[in-house]
């Protein structure tokens, strides 16, 4: 409401400012504008300037004489007053008034209603982040993260802050930020097993599931601090498997399995790896597998690049079809958008995002999650109308 009041005040003020000159000239009917008079003034100024130059010594007497003669000739010509314009305010001025009164508000209001977002408030970040904290009581993790980020922006040397934030990023699937946070924590607080393994996971996720040399180094560093760390053992063994050093990988996984309690949560995954690597069938328990995803991805690791892409594309297409049939599945949508981005199909990803947003129209929390995901994946959501 306040917006429209201010907009109206603005419109009226602008309209009046344009009407004043039209109205003023209504009263003075005719006006003579001697166009040459402006030139005459310039020439008079120039003549005065010549005198000043002569007095200053930068113009000699005969130069000045020539200059004077030239200006005088122009002055004479201009003084004849051949270019006199007579202006008056005819009936057309009235048309001008109506043009202003009608066109101005019409263009402004119609234009704004077409492309503007009337009534949409400004949303400065400070207003969104800070007051939310006391009421939410730490409920919204994203707000907490934003607050921590704000704190670290001003205190980038606060190692504990980075240490707390890093695993949260990891959980939120914000791998790049997680990597930075872990690196900062390592730099400021020194090495620890948790920091090294966390950094390793963040790097692993960013490399698309490949144990790169950097990932390997990180887990080796963790292992040197705590030789029995299962995470390090797992990823190092996985790295060996990816390098094609099957025997070494198998013994790595076997060692991890023997060091772990039988009901450890990672055991099914380890067993499954052992099966793939062609050892320890006796330990394999197909029913306890970590899920089809892990198996499929592992299978994919052994295919050629082309086959793998085909398989993944097939899975994503399946998910897409499933969501078309049953769209009320937010995690599914998030996974789909992400999968398309990973497959390098931004067009499909933004299409999926648009469909998801349409589906969750009105459910602000879900939309927010989608928007955040989009931001995180570097996707550009189309401009969203209210």
């Amino acid at each position, binding site marked *: 409401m306040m917006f429209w009041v201010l907009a109206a005040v603005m419109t009226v003020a602008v309209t009046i400012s344009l009407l004043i000159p*039209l109205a003023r000239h209504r009263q003075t009917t005719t006006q003579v504008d001697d166009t040459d008079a*402006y030139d005459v003034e310039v020439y008079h100024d120039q003549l005065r300037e010549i005198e000043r130059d002569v007095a200053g010594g930068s113009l000699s007497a005969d130069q000045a004489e020539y200059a004077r003669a030239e200006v005088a000739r122009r002055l004479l010509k201009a003084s004849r007053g051949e270019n006199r314009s007579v*202006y008056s305010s005819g009936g057309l001025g009235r048309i001008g008034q109506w043009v202003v009164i009608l066109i101005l508000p019409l263009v402004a209001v119609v234009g*704004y209603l077409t492309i503007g977002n009337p009534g949409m408030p400004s949303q400065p970040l400070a207003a969104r982040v800070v007051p939310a904290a006391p009421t939410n009581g730490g409920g919204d993790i994203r707000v907490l993260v934003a607050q921590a980020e704000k704190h670290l922006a001003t205190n980038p040397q606060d190692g504990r802050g980075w240490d707390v934030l890093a695993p949260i990023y990891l959980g939120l699937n914000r791998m790049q930020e997680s990597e930075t946070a872990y690196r900062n924590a390592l730099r400021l607080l020194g090495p620890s097993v948790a920091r090294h393994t966390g950094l390793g996971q963040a790097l692993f996720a960013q490399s698309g599931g490949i144990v790169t040399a950097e990932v390997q180094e990180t887990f080796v560093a963790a292992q040197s601090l705590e030789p029995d760390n299962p995470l390090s053992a797992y990823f190092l063994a996985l790295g060996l498997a990816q390098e094609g050093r099957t025997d070494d990988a198998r013994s790595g996984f076997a060692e991890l399995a023997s060091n772990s309690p039988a009901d450890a949560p990672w055991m099914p995954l380890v067993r499954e790896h052992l099966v793939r690597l062609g050892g320890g069938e006796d330990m394999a328990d197909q029913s306890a597998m970590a899920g089809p995803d892990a198996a499929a991805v592992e299978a994919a690791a052994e295919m050629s690049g082309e086959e793998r892409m085909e398989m993944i594309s097939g899975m994503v297409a399946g998910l897409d079809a499933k969501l078309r049939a049953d769209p009320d599945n937010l995690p599914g949508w998030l996974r789909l958008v992400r999968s398309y981005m990973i497959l390098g199909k931004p067009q499909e990803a933004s299409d999926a995002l648009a469909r998801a947003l349409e589906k969750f129209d009105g459910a602000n929390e879900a939309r927010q999650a989608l928007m955040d995901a989009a931001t995180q994946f570097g996707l550009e959501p189309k401009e969203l109308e209210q």
Partner: protein
Amino acid sequence: MIVELGHYALIMALATSLIQSVLPLAGARIRDNGLMAVAAPAAITSFLLILLAFIALTVSYVTSDFSVQNVWENSHSLKPLIYKFSGVWGNHEGSMLLWILILVFFSALVAMFGSNLPASLKANVLAVQAWITSAFLFFVLLTSNPFNRLNPAPLEGRDLNPILQDIGLAIHPPLLYLGYVGFSICFSFAVAALIDGRIDAAWARWVRPWTLAAWTTLTAGIAMGSYWAYYELGWGGWWFWDPVENASFMPWLAGTALLHSALVMEKREALKIWTILLAIMTFSLSLLGTFLVRSGVLTSVHAFATDPLRGIFILCILIVFIGGAFTLFALRAQTLSPGGLFAPVSKEGALVLNNLFLTTAMATVLIGTLYPLVLEAVTGAKISVGPPFFNLTFGPVMIPLLLAVPFGPLLAWKRGDIWAVTQRLYLAAGVSLLVALAVTYFATGAPVLAGIGIGIGVWLIMGSLTDIALRAGIGNASPSVMWRRLIGLPRSAFGGALAHFGLGISVVGIVAVTAFSTELVANVAPGGKIQSGPFTLEFKGLKPNSGPNYSELQGAFSVSRDGENIAEIVSAKRVYTARRMPTTEAGIMTTGPNQLYVALGDETPGGGTVVRVWWKPWVTFIWFGAIIMSVGGVVSLFDRRLRIGAPARRKAGAAIAEPTT
């Protein structure tokens, strides 16, 4: 709410501009003073409205309001405050808004201070300005609206392109735009004169200061941009003949010609047609530059084709304004009364020569810039026209011009004596020749061209000093009289001499850097040493560091000369967290006019780091010269604008009556 008010103000400004484009023009045609009088308040109102819009966008940036799409795309809550401000124009939409803001600011200035202009001229000028404003407002609102909103708003923005997070970016575009858009006023005056069919003395008096102001800011803007590219891109070069650079250089060349033309026009009422033509040409090139940079056509002709709306829109603006203005010129130019006459050898004649050389140079740059684009659009073949082309075409055109520059100011108006001038320049010529020979001699192995090039630079410097000395009456007046005359010289004389002096300084810098700089790529481990120029650099190793929105690896070098430690250089490789984008922060040490430039490359497996080191003697002269040129522009701008050029005395025997107007 401020965001939406800003948006509304922007649309309101379009409505006002539309009225300002039509009513005053109609008023001037049918001689209705009421309609003409609408122009001034409309111009001032448009300025206030667009200022409000600009403030609204700035507030959104400063408060990190990510519900504004433009802010979300180009800002980040952790970005330092100064880059939140500069981020407003560090992107397409915002920079177009700044463009328009400057445009209407200039219109408002004409509206407020134009009381000494004939009424119809003022009305026409403001109407033409309003056409440009309306066209660009349509463009912004329909294709590049900075006020598009996002709902719900993302929590964090995507940050400004890191290479743009620099103080250079905060200053460079506004300066450049002040220049580009400043020429719009000259354009509007030219078109208004063509519509009216006459050019008054008052016209000339107005156009020259605008040209000067625009030229001054453009010069400073280009120099700034060049220095920014030099230290931020980490390639060690200061000019790349890149289309974006050419886009600003072409208006500068045409603008320089316009500046000299306008000078003749103001003082002698000659070269009227030239001035009009150059005014149209200069602004057309500014528009072309805007098109090249803003349409995406430079990234790839195909990128232009996938999102054609923006490009086609600017192309239409281009065709309408440039085509319209040149058509009008073709139709009306002959109705303008020709200006004063002059002999071929005279200051006027020298300036015509200057115009011809500058426009030719501009044409070579234009061809070098557009030819690859046209070729790609037509045949799909991608070629790049690099420095070799420009060195072979632009260089040869500029050398005779540079040699001729010192003659110009010394020639008399109307009829000059080239031999007398040559005699008066003998000292300058002698000194330049000596310096050229000395450089050739001392730089054994250096190309003789370098000596000649530096000679040309010194020739310009000495020529400008000779000009001032002669005006003060050196040799034929007592010291006290000389001093008095020196003080009494018009500021425009100092301004002109300063500009030519600065040009000489830049030429010396360009030649010296081209001929004498050394580049070295080395793989060094901590403790390793590199020899560059007279200095020894010792690599101290890499250490991580983090800033507000980036983390970096800093490489420190201690610099010593003859075993004595004199300085520390820190060069860095940064990664900006939000975009995961690496940038190079070159480490630069300045000693006198020379610079030692260090850029870090990748780390190598053996624990070493690839380091590129340039020793660039006299490099700062390039920008220092440009700054002197701008200062010359400012000095000249503050001169009283009433001067006429006193013609030279006619020689005995040639006393035949000739008309002068």
